[in-house]
C-alpha cells in the first residue's frame, strides 16, 4: 500500500474517530491516533479547510466545527446510525451521514418554522420518502462564504 500523505492520514483519522464515537475529534485526539505532532495536525486542518473538506472553529484552529456531513457541535439534526448518535450540520447532511456510513439511519428533526417533529429515515439503503421539502437559502456559488449559515 502506498504511503499516505499527512493530509490524507489526518482526514481519515477525523472520519474514523467520528464514525466510531459520534464526536468530531480535536487536533489532540487526531495526533494521538496517528502518532504525529499536534502542530502538524493543526496545519493539516488548515489545508483540508482550503480544500473545503472541513471547517475549523473560527476562534480555535485545534477544533473542528464541521467535518461534513458531521457537526462538531450539537445541532437540530441529530442522527442515530449503527447504534451511535451523531449531529449533522443541516438537513442535507442528516441524509449525508447515512450515505457516508453506508447504513440505515434515523434523524429526529423538526419543521424549520413550526418546530413540529419531522423524522427522516433511511431503511435498507433508501430514504423513506415523505412529502417534506428542504429549503436552500443560499445559492450554490456562495455556500462556503458562510457555511455555518448555509
Amino acid at each position: 500500500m502506498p504511503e499516505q500523505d499527512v493530509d490524507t492520514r489526518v482526514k481519515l483519522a477525523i472520519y474514523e474517530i467520528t464514525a466510531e464515537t459520534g464526536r468530531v475529534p480535536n487536533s489532540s485526539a487526531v495526533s494521538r491516533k496517528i502518532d504525529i505532532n499536534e502542530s502538524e495536525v493543526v496545519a493539516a486542518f488548515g489545508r483540508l479547510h482550503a480544500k473545503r473538506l472541513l471547517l475549523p472553529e473560527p476562534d480555535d484552529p485545534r477544533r473542528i466545527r464541521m467535518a461534513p456531513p458531521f457537526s462538531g457541535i450539537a445541532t437540530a439534526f441529530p442522527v442515530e446510525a449503527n447504534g451511535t448518535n451523531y449531529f449533522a450540520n443541516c438537513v442535507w447532511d442528516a441524509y449525508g451521514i447515512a450515505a457516508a456510513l453506508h447504513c440505515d439511519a434515523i434523524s429526529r428533526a423538526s419543521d424549520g418554522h413550526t418546530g413540529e417533529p419531522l423524522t427522516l429515515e433511511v431503511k435498507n439503503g433508501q430514504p423513506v420518502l415523505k412529502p417534506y421539502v428542504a429549503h436552500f437559502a443560499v445559492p450554490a456559488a456562495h455556500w462556503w462564504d458562510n457555511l455555518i449559515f448555509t
Partner: protein
Amino acid sequence: MLLFRSEETVDMWCAAYNIPRRPLVNLAQLWQLAVHWYGNRLTVESRRPALDEMVSIFSSLGLTGPFWDPKSDQ
C-alpha cells in the same frame, strides 16, 4: 438548509424572517445529493465534487438555473 413539512411552512418561515423564497428540494433529490456528496467521504480518495461535477449532479436531479451554478455570482 432547513427541513419543512410543506411549502406552506417554508413560505411562513420566509415571511417571518424576511428571507427570499429559494428553490425547494424533495427528499428523493436530497438523498441523491447526499449520496453524491458523501458516499465516499470516509475513503482515501474522498474529495468535494469539482465545480463541473457539481453542475452535472444538480442537473441530473433537475436542479438547474443560476441558483445551482456554483460559478454563478447570483
